[in-house]
């Protein structure tokens, strides 16, 4: 029960420089490219974090245009997710569907992105209309593409149109050219394509780290859950690695546009390319933070050794690890896939930041993995992570506790271009449907999708990549599967709706919200759908009991989503904020907010842009974009109270087994919270009482949160709130809201 101690002697001796190479096709690829368009431009470096221009590319008409980044854009939208939403708003109509040519994929770093002195500063935000939710999705992704795009002269990249043939967009920020090439026949899966294109577009070996490739994989073509891989060249391993813009099907839109890859080649990175207003403050803040990681991380989360996988055993200990489609919160086999294993299995002698200067270095990698199935059977590969979400989603939530299979599932999700979180949750749903007879071997085309059957799980994934069989059904995601199963008459519609863990069409990420009302809101009352990047309040609420009232929960659901939105406006990663804390954090007021780190962020923004802000301004910056996104959802015909509804599995026990796994807790709640003596009542009676109470509580939470956020009880931002935020300067925004007020 005491904290795990890292023992270097237990780390497996695996040669991290060995893997299957895919450069054989390089020559054919080089000669097979056919240039469709080439445009010269003048490269630039940012000044105080901004280039003040963005790049627009239409892959159908081959239009390539520079657009100015206006002062208003910077003032209201800051960058990153803000710029993405702004461009998307201007590109689409309320009637636009995800696969219409006018839908865009926008990739934008943020003003601070690209500094090298602080941890977690290489992030890009990717925004598009999601095939799963039909509203804007935003995804925060590492890798080198965002910083290199900025150092090539652009604060954002808009991709619009639909090509009739596979194209590669190449931005050469050194030579100053933008090229659209027709791609020859060849691989689409990221681990092959990323390696090929990195070598193809780099001038020489020393140039490899200056090239980053955005790509997806075969499954993105046949599913709605495709993601984008953003590459970075790992010098010590000598290989191309990836971070993922996972959620919401962005990879699906990418392939629907017939974009095979977007490649950026930037200048050699140095510490001052972002040209901040006050480099000295950035340097001192960064050095202070690196020291904090060195001194504190070994005694806190050990992010440098385990990455986010360190919380597998923590979640299990607190009954919060999703097991068997979020039915249960722990499992006796969890030790097989917890960080005591991963810190031995992952290479520990390398540098695992996904951008320079990330001393937190959570991007762990398992080397020497020899694949057992699929088109790359027998190949030796490096698998990213696994991160917590993957270990929990692909692992415990599906009952897979074999770490080798978990790595293989993780690998194929990555190279096929599908979101591990989404795949984990939808497979868990399928397996529970199988358990309950909603699915069977006949309905799955022969796949025995029982808990823990990793071979069937992998076969379903291979089918998804081939666009065949039940894998194609699975690739529709939970929401559409629910409708499909119900339409086929395969089971009780209420049960199917209760156990399908999606909200707004997006699958839940891998935390159990059942016992934390605040987290139920943290998931369901989000802009893009149930992803924990807005708020993670389970400990504050359920364990610490710090949020006893609806008002306290609403305050947390006001502050934290706004605070965390800010990372995506500026190009930050969330993890360095609170996966390590200063030694004296415990004696600070509001230690949950990690006040010293909040001040670091305020300082980094001011030092980069020269615009002096306070921590209150930081929240206002986020509030503008957050409310704009809410209005955007409403404009697309969603974004109201009814769209924030949560599946009952996320609110309480759906089944008898779930109730009985926590009888003591649930019975006590009946007595303490409802004043009902559970004695003599059947489990079904007690479940019904819980359901009424929990559903009502969630509704009351919605009221409190909407009120705190300055929204109507239908979830619509009020005109007063828009005025406070200065969003009344946009008549179109006001017009959307006026229809509901």
């Amino acid at each position, binding site marked *: *029960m*005491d*904290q795990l101690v890292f023992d270097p002697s237990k780390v497996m001796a695996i040669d991290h420089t060995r893997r299957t190479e895919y450069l054989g096709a390089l020559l054919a690829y080089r000669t097979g490219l056919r240039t469709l368009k080439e445009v010269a431009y003048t490269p630039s470096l940012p000044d105080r974090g901004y280039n003040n221009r963005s790049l627009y590319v239409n892959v159908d008409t081959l239009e390539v245009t520079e657009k100015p980044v206006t002062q208003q854009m910077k003032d209201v939208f800051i960058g990153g997710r803000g710029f993405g939403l702004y461009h998307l708003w201007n590109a689409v109509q309320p009637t636009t569907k995800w696969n219409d040519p006018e839908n865009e994929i926008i990739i934008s770093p943020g003003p601070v992105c690209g500094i090298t002195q602080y941890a977690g500063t290489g992030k890009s935000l990717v925004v598009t209309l999601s095939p799963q939710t039909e509203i804007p999705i935003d995804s925060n992704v590492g890798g080198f593409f965002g910083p290199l795009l900025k150092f090539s002269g652009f604060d954002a990249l808009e991709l619009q149109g639909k090509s009739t043939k596979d194209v590669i967009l190449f931005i050469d920020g050194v030579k100053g050219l933008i090229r659209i090439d027709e791609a020859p026949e060849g691989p689409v899966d990221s681990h092959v394509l990323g390696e090929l294109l990195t070598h193809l577009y780099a001038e020489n070996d020393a140039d490899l780290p200056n090239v980053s490739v955005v790509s997806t994989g075969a499954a993105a073509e046949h599913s709605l859950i495709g993601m984008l891989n953003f590459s970075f060249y790992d010098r010590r391993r000598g290989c191309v690695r990836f971070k993922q813009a996972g959620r919401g099907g962005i990879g699906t839109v990418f392939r629907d546009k017939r974009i095979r890859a977007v490649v950026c080649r930037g200048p050699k990175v140095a510490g001052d390319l972002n040209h901040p207003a006050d480099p000295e403050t950035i340097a001192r803040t960064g050095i202070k933070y690196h020291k904090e990681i060195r001194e504190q991380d070994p*005694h*806190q*989360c*050990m992010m440098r050794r385990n990455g*986010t996988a*360190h*919380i597998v*055993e*923590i979640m299990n*200990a*607190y009954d919060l690890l999703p097991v068997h489609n979020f039915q249960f919160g722990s499992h006796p086999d969890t030790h097989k896939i917890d960080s005591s294993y991963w810190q031995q299995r992952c290479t520990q002698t390398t540098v695992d930041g996904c951008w320079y200067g990330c001393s937190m270095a959570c991007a762990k990698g398992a080397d020497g993995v020899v694949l057992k199935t699929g088109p790359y059977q027998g190949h030796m590969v490096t698998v990213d992570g696994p991160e*917590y979400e993957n270990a929990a989603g692909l692992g415990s939530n599906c009952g897979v506790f074999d770490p080798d299979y978990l790595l293989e599932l993780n690998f194929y999700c990555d190279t096929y271009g599908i979101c591990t979180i989404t795949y984990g949750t939808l497979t868990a749903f399928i397996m529970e449907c199988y358990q309950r007879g909603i699915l069977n071997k006949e309905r799955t085309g022969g796949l025995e999708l029982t808990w823990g059957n990793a071979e069937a799980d992998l076969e379903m994934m291979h089918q998804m990549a081939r666009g065949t069989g039940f894998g194609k059904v699975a690739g529709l995601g939970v929401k559409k599967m629910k409708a499909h199963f119900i339409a086929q008459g395969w089971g009780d519609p209420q049960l199917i709706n209760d156990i399908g863990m999606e909200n707004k069409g997006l699958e839940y990420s891998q*935390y159990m919200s059942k016992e934390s009302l605040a987290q139920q809101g943290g998931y369901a009352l989000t802009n893009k759908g149930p992803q*924990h990047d807005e708020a*993670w309040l*389970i*400990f*504050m609420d359920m*364990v*610490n*009991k*710090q949020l006893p009232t609806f008002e306290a929960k609403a305050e947390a659901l006001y502050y934290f989503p706004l605070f965390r939105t800010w990372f995506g406006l500026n190009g930050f990663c969330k993890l360095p904020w*609170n*996966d390590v*804390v200063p030694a004296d*954090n*415990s*004696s600070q007021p509001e*230690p*949950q907010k*990690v006040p010293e780190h909040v001040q670091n962020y305020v300082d980094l923004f001011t030092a980069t842009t020269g615009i002096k802000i306070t921590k209150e301004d930081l929240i206002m910056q986020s509030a503008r974009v957050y409310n704009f996104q809410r209005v955007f959802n409403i404009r697309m015909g969603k974004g109201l109270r009814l769209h924030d509804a949560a599946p009952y599995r996320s609110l309480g026990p759906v089944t008898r087994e779930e109730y009985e796994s926590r009888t003591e807790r649930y019975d006590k709640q009946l007595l303490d919270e409802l004043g009902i003596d559970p004695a003599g009542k059947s489990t079904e009676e007690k479940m019904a009482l819980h359901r009424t109470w929990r559903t009502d509580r969630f509704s009351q939470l919605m009221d409190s949160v909407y009120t705190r956020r300055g929204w109507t009880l239908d979830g619509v931002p009020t005109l007063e709130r828009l005025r406070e935020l200065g969003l009344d300067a946009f008549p179109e925004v006001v017009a959307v809201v006026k229809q509901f007020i």
Partner: protein
Amino acid sequence: MGVIVVNEEPLGWHEGMTVRDILRAKNYRFPMLIIHVNGLLIAKPDYGTTTVPDSAIVQVIHLISGG
């Protein structure tokens, strides 16, 4: 036998009970905790040596990580 309150829930107390004993009893394994015993902040190196009096009010604040 005495009782203490940990995060607003009662927990059986015994003579010589340390902060570490409480963490074991509650299975609080998270590495980033802020612990107050009767309002007094206890430093991490002292968890094993700090004894908790009967009827103590103990707050074990878990910070956030991962998510």
